[in-house]
């Protein structure tokens, strides 16, 4: 028993990225969080829990062989510890390496995934990583609730664009509080802060009775560009305000000062790497 507790203490930090509205930038934030944590020296795995229409592999230009479907199936059929290495797709860009547990290849698989088995998989992989980043869908599904229970921290992404979205943020937050999640476990991150809107940020914070933990600048074109390049902004050689904003978020989360030098080194080695490709 004692040993089990110790194991749990050693296990990786689970960071879930959630929202109550779609298209707020969950996936972009997830891959960038993973990349920035990896760049900072942590062992990181990002898991695509948008089982039906997951975009992580699209955003990173990966073609996975094995997915979460295979992993959870193996977990269901295996007693004891499983080696999750074979279900992972590695992402590598310059000096940054992190793992991806991809969404299922087809919809039939996505529809036939057991929440319990996914939880088992996550319990398994968290033992092998410092950080596990979970990208979700904008709904309180069985799966999302189960992984939020498990999570160390929930990054609740929002956009202040129009009233229905804000209503859903409020309703979603109230729901999470009523389930019993600590305030401290939920961190509001505002995306696209200066997008065209008539709504004041303060009004939203007043409604939520909560401050935004972090605010990301509106940089839609940069975001789209990075998606098409398949390179997370935080490890791209070209510095952008949005990439910087996401790095700052990770700095807050990891409670560390920013290491400017490592970016420099990374770009140098990338330049060399590209020459010898």
């Amino acid at each position, binding site marked *: 028993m004692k040993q089990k507790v110790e194991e749990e203490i050693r296990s990786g930090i689970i960071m879930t990225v959630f929202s*109550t509205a779609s298209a707020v930038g969950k996936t972009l934030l997830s891959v960038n969080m993973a990349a920035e944590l990896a760049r900072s020296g942590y062992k990181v795995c990002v898991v695509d829990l948008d089982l*039906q229409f997951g975009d992580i592999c699209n955003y990173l230009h990966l073609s996975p062989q094995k997915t979460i479907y295979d992993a959870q199936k193996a977990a269901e059929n295996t007693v004891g510890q499983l080696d999750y290495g074979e279900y992972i797709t590695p992402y590598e860009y310059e000096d940054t390496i992190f793992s991806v547990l991809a969404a299922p290849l087809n*919809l039939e698989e996505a529809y036939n995934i057991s929440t319990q088995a996914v939880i088992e998989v996550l319990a398994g992989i968290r033992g092998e990583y410092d950080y596990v980043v979970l990208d979700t*869908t904008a*709904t309180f599904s069985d799966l999302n609730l189960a992984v939020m229970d498990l999570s160390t921290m929930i990054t609740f992404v929002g956009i202040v664009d129009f*009233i*229905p979205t804000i209503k859903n943020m409020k309703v979603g937050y109230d*729901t999470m509080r009523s389930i019993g999640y600590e305030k401290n476990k939920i961190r509001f991150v505002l995306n696209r802060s200066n997008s065209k809107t008539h709504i004041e940020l303060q009004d939203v914070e007043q409604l939520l009775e909560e401050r935004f933990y972090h605010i990301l600048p509106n940089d839609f074109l940069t975001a*789209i560009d990075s998606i*098409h390049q398949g390179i997370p902004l935080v490890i791209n050689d070209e510095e952008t305000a949005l990439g910087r904003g996401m790095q700052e978020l990770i700095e807050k989360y990891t409670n560390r000062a920013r290491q400017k030098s490592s970016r420099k080194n990374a770009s140098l080695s990338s330049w060399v790497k590209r020459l010898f490709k």
Partner: protein
Amino acid sequence: MPEYRVLLIEPNRIMMERLSSVVRNTKNFQLVSRAMDAREALGQGGVFVPNLILLDIDAQESMQLVREFVRAFPQAGILALSSQWNAQASSAVVKAGAKGYLIKPFTSEELIAAINTFGNSGMGMISEVMTFFSPKGKSGKTTLIANLGMALAQKSGQNVAIIDADLQFGDMAVFFNLDPQSTIVEATRDIKFLSPISLNSYFMPIAERVRVLCGTKRPEFAEDVSPKAFTDMISMARSLFRYILVDVPSAFNPISVAAAEASEQVYLVSMISGGYEGKHMQRALDIFKAWPDYETKVKTIFTRVEPCDIQKQQQLEALIEYPVCSILPNEYLLVSEAANNGRMAVDIKPGSPLARSIDLLAAQIYGRPYKVG
């Protein structure tokens, strides 16, 4: 206020007395004749010149009788009476020519509501259910449905329903600035005890011929809506509305699948945002291709299309390798302003490109020949 001259056919004597008393005590209703035997009423009822026939259909043969009554009393409206709601019987009597279906015993209020609902609009003849499905996330379909519902009512002059089945985060109530007394949760909870008339009161009126059944007030209520009760509710709503537009949660889930299966038409809606919308649309289409009639049943719509022209539409068709039924332009500010004010875009600027595109789609739906089954 028209005077209703009622011919009542009811085989059970006690029920007959009870219903007779209700009809007599309802303002503007006159009980001109009554019969316990339908054949007898067919032969002799004509001399009393009824304009409303309340016909029991629980007795055998009655379905056949509906047809004969329609022939014998072409000037009268026929309401079928039954002691319980039965979707199949309801649709059969309506196909046979009855105006609607009323559960007995009824009160004066229910009788009047039935006349108002079925009487004026020539309802119940046919109905079309359309589900708006989005593969992934934000699609702009709530805006589309709200505006399309209004446009369809205007074009057809018939009753339109919008059902917000986006159970956790439905926005229809906010769109129309409603604070509903009853929502999809209550309607599906009560469905076993409802008749079309009583179901109608769960829908909030938002315009002359448009009603909305709002989504849940809190996400946790979503669990209370069972797919079975949900499809029962849709099938009952068919006798109230000519067009039923259903907003469902994105992706494949029990509710979106149930709605799609209960529909004549499924619209896959996706918003262009520079990501992988085409890929997701294709992925969703692949599932619907299991239906033998998917080519007629499943249509695609893209929103926020820039430039919103025929070349772009063809490009999208090439991308997804499937016809694109409609493309809607980007009107972000117009739409968000409309939503923030609890009003729909067509309400504000009828001439805007978005309103025009939606109008075009409404015309397409209205002009479509109705396909039975």
